[in-house]
């Protein structure tokens, strides 16, 4: 009899559904249950680096904003270190680098405050441009979608980024680059994610 491999198989994904907030952001669902909800403070009070706000929408194939989406963010600190044992180095006390964001139920707008991440090493040793790793789940999304957000004021680093350069269609790289503006002393990056159709955002199989 032939040998068989004994690997287990990954549990299959299912949609997070329209009521994802009950489990992961119960305050938004309309009730108060936990001492603290997780994911609201990404960088913490001690993080070095430039304080930024990131805002956007997730837009479906009909051009409509999705109002029941949840995004998670995973990012390095300003030194390019992730808050993880293999993250490359120390991070500030209170810096988690992970956040959870939900949309406004009426407008579909979301936003979060953090610090701009530093550069991190790519798999071939080349430095990656500063980026946020994003994971998107919602009703109608069967498997969470992975993408990245880069910064439009990092043009030189973006031009050499090993991941952006994987994208064969050069015009699609622009879908991953957020646009900087400043309003009332706050630095804001705008990042709309288009799930389908014209200017569809690049999603990764990671």
């Amino acid at each position: 009899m032939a040998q068989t491999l004994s690997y287990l198989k990954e549990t299959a994904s299912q949609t997070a559904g329209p009521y994802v907030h009950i489990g992961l952001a119960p305050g938004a669902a309309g009730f108060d249950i936990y001492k603290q909800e997780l994911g609201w403070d990404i960088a913490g009070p001690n993080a070095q680096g430039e304080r930024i706000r990131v805002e956007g929408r997730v837009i479906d194939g009909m051009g409509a904003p999705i109002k029941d989406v949840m995004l998670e963010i995973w990012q390095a600190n300003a030194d390019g270190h992730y808050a993880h044992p293999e993250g490359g180095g120390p991070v500030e006390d209170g810096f988690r680098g992970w956040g959870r964001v939900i949309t406004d139920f009426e407008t579909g707008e979301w936003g979060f405050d953090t610090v701009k991440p530093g550069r991190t090493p790519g798999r071939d040793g080349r430095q990656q441009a500063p980026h946020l790793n994003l994971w998107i789940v919602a009703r109608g999304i069967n498997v969470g979608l992975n993408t990245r957000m880069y910064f439009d004021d990092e043009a030189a680093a973006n031009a050499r980024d090993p991941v952006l350069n994987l994208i064969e269609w050069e015009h699609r790289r622009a879908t991953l680059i957020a646009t900087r503006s400043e309003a009332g002393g706050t630095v804001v990056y705008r990042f709309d994610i288009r799930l389908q159709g014209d200017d569809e955002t690049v999603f990764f199989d990671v």
Partner: protein
Amino acid sequence: MTQPAEFYQRNRSLHPPALTPGYKTSVARSPRYSLIALGNSVSEITGPVFGQNDIDPGDNDLLTNYARPGEAPIGERIILHGRVLDENARPVPNTLVELWQANAGGRYRHKKDTYLAPIDPNFGGCGRTLTDANGYYAFRTVKPGAYPWRNMVNDWRPAHVHLSVFGSGFVQRLITQCYFQGDPLIPLCPIVQTIPDPDAIEQLIALLDMNATIPLDTIAYRFDIVLRGRRSTLFENRPEGN
């Protein structure tokens, strides 16, 4: 510069594809272009770390975490428990497992749920816990009811519990749904049937676990969760060798 040990490639044939027209909402919410394959860097192999300070010990008991003092939710009292393992069958310790569900009548405590079945004043419907050193987790709750949804004219979700799991790397992140053994709605459900592989569907069905049942108190279901495995660094193309 060392290459980080990568996670095994996700076997997408075990997972639902993005576009599954029987589940109508997926039609406008599925990318049309292919995913771009990305080898793992430090950005992918790392992920958030949680500790006991992040949660309360009682957060995993849905029979008490929203009930008024001296009261309890109505419904079939169950323990839902199991292990979080990786594809190498190694336990995933100290990882955050979050859960949410409808009440015994199929009603969610969510301002967007307008189903006519009533809210249970003693049931919130969410819980969370960290796996122990052996990857083990447990919740106490009531078995959720089936509920109707606006997909086809007469679609009903099987009784299910939503589960969210982290693992050690952000690319292990998983949200899934756990169903209950013997539920005749399972094969009828367009969301279940987004999964093309019958064995992968079977893997989402919690089994009645009489050995974990507490006599005269709470019945039990067993649900193990498998996250992506990670390879060793053998034969990575590293200048300094392994």
